[in-house]
């Protein structure tokens, strides 16, 4: 409830906000390096805010992490600690001290991009015949590879589709796998490569 109000206020002030519900997800999101600031509640389920911060610092995460707590926060590693209850205006005054971090684009030479796309086309063919033979283990290994690599080569949609398929896969009944696999390949082919 409070998080929602806070998010609304921050968005009204022009910030883009992503809210996650525990320290585990906070670590995963932070590692995307898409955020200028992390506001971290100290008391959270699964992984508390201090442990999440410490894990990120251990991994070399060097962007601002701000603690939010009703208690005094003494652990080193936070850039700032905000005392709860929070007033948006006070928070805003603190946030202006932190500058936006310019994003660094990935250098993707076009030869490399095209070489990868040709490789992906080959994989789709291979996936087609694996699906035909119902070799699902090998099929999903390739899907996993696509998920991990495609987005680095300007094919984020393919990664996303592969991720969707992977997360649904265990719940798809055996007799529907072929159909689902065909749908995946259709979607992939619909994302015109080049």
């Amino acid at each position, binding site marked *: 409830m409070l998080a929602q109000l806070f998010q609304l206020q921050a968005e009204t002030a022009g910030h883009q906000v992503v809210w996650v519900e525990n320290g*585990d997800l906070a*670590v*995963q999101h932070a*590692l*995307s*390096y*898409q955020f200028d600031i992390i506001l971290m509640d100290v008391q959270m389920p*699964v*992984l508390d805010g201090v442990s999440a911060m410490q*894990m990120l610092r*251990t*991994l*070399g*995460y*060097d962007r601002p992490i701000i603690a939010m707590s009703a208690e005094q926060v003494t652990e080193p590693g936070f850039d700032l600690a905000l005392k709860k209850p929070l007033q948006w205006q006070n928070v805003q005054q603190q946030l202006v001290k932190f500058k936006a*971090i310019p*994003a*660094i*684009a*990935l*250098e*993707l*030479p076009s030869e*490399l991009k095209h*070489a*990868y796309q040709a*490789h992906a086309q080959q994989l789709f063919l291979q996936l087609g015949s694996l699906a035909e033979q119902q070799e699902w283990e090998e099929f999903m290994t390739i899907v*996993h*590879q696509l*998920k*991990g*690599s*495609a*987005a*680095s*080569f300007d094919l*984020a949609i393919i*990664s996303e589709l592969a991720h969707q398929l992977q997360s649904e896969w265990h719940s798809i009944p055996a007799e529907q796998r072929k159909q689902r696999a065909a749908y995946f390949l259709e979607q992939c082919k619909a994302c015109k490569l080049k």
Partner: protein
Amino acid sequence: MQTKVKVREQKILLVDDLDYNRQLLRNNLTALFSKEKLKYKAFSYFQAHNSSSALLAFSQQLPEMVFLDIELPDGSGLELLKRFKEQKPDCFVVMVSGVSTLDNVKTSIASGAASFIVKPFTGDKILAVLKQFDRYYDKLPKQVAEPLLQKP
């Protein structure tokens, strides 16, 4: 002292089963070394496409930095990580994975990984790792860091 010290090239080992990923990583490392203000930027590159070739390359080269994919065709990068840290405890190993589950991250840290990159690669993720390497390498005990500095 700073003026006439020649720095020997440090070594980076890139381990990923996909050739394109290694090329992409290498391209971007080179780009960041030339564009960004980094202290250590003279590296030579070595590559491996699976666990067994990675083990061989590692023991031959004893690299300062490794980018190590967790999902390898003939084994887990997490197992390799342990072997690398046994051979060269001060090696800076960056785990790379499409899966950033807390288990993966925790196991990596526990086995001595210095950092963790979640695929897809971005410039920001790679740069953060290189900055961390600068800090890490500065802090290494002198007897380890010194052989890299040779007077001409």
